[in-house]
């Protein structure tokens, strides 16, 4: 059975903007892949149509059927992970093998507090 996995160092999944994310990508494929690459991207979920922003792509040259590669990426300054009632923005690392569009993905949080920003209705009077 095919398998594509991503593991971050120490299993960390929450980061601040600008931090370095290190880890390893491993895969076991039934059919050879011409390309395997790691993608860092954000995407939205909610009531609106989905937006996707691929921030960075790291190719793994000459991928074998079964392989393990390390990666080291620097997170951008934004956007932050957040959730409101209409929109959630999530970050993820994904390894994609082509042809066949086979992928493995892990979700991460990117924000100054290393926690998803929750848009809760609030009222303030100055």
């Amino acid at each position, binding site marked *: 059975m095919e398998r594509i996995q991503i593991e971050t160092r120490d299993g960390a999944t929450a980061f601040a903007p600008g931090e370095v994310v290190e880890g390893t990508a491993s895969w076991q494929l039934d059919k050879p892949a011409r390309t395997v690459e790691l993608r860092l991207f954000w995407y939205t*979920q909610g*009531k*609106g149509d*989905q937006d996707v922003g691929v921030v960075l792509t790291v190719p793994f040259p000459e991928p074998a059927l079964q392989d393990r590669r390390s990666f080291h990426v620097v997170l951008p300054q934004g956007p932050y992970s957040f*959730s*409101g*009632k*209409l*929109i*959630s923005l999530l970050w993820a690392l994904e390894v994609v093998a082509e042809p066949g569009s086979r992928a493995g993905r892990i979700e991460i949080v990117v924000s100054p507090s290393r926690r998803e920003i929750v848009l809760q209705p609030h009222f303030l009077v100055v």
Partner: protein
Amino acid sequence: MRARDNPFAAQCVQAIPYRLSGSTWEKLLDRLAALRCRAALVGPHGRGKTTLLEELARRLDERGLRTRRIVLREGDRRLSGAQRETLFRSLTARDVLLVDGAEQFGRLAWLEVRTRSRAAGGLVITSHRPGLLPTLYECRTTPELLAGIVADLVGREEAGRLPPAEDLLVRHGGNVRDALRDLYDFCAGITSSPAARTGSP
């Protein structure tokens, strides 16, 4: 409830496959072949025509055909340059053209599509009204259909706690899409007001 947890988020709803009523995919594809692959999916707003077209595209791709799809928006009376390129470049008999929203076309634009698509293996459109091409399938909605979609999204037990499908369909004039968006608001705890939404239905 956070947007990402809402079972009626756009991405979850769009992932629901189309449920044929009174037919099977085998029969539908046979009928399409009998119509020489030139046919229309008809129905008013929010009846699932786009979803059905997407599912049809997937099945045609599985059968070794190559689908090329464009989506027309409100007011698109003719093809743009990019759309012409998508539809008509190097057409072969293996290509099936899919036009979502063909009722938007003006007469000349529709004539252009019909003429230039002759080289393709097929042309399937969605339209609010019949008449442009032979009807392959008429998209209709029923309370049972909506109830089934809701159950797929949230499970039967949770579905029982939501507003009844029949009431929703009546309120939205049979428009399943609007009914599902209403359920999104219900789960999110949003009281929708006319000022909170703008749209071009």
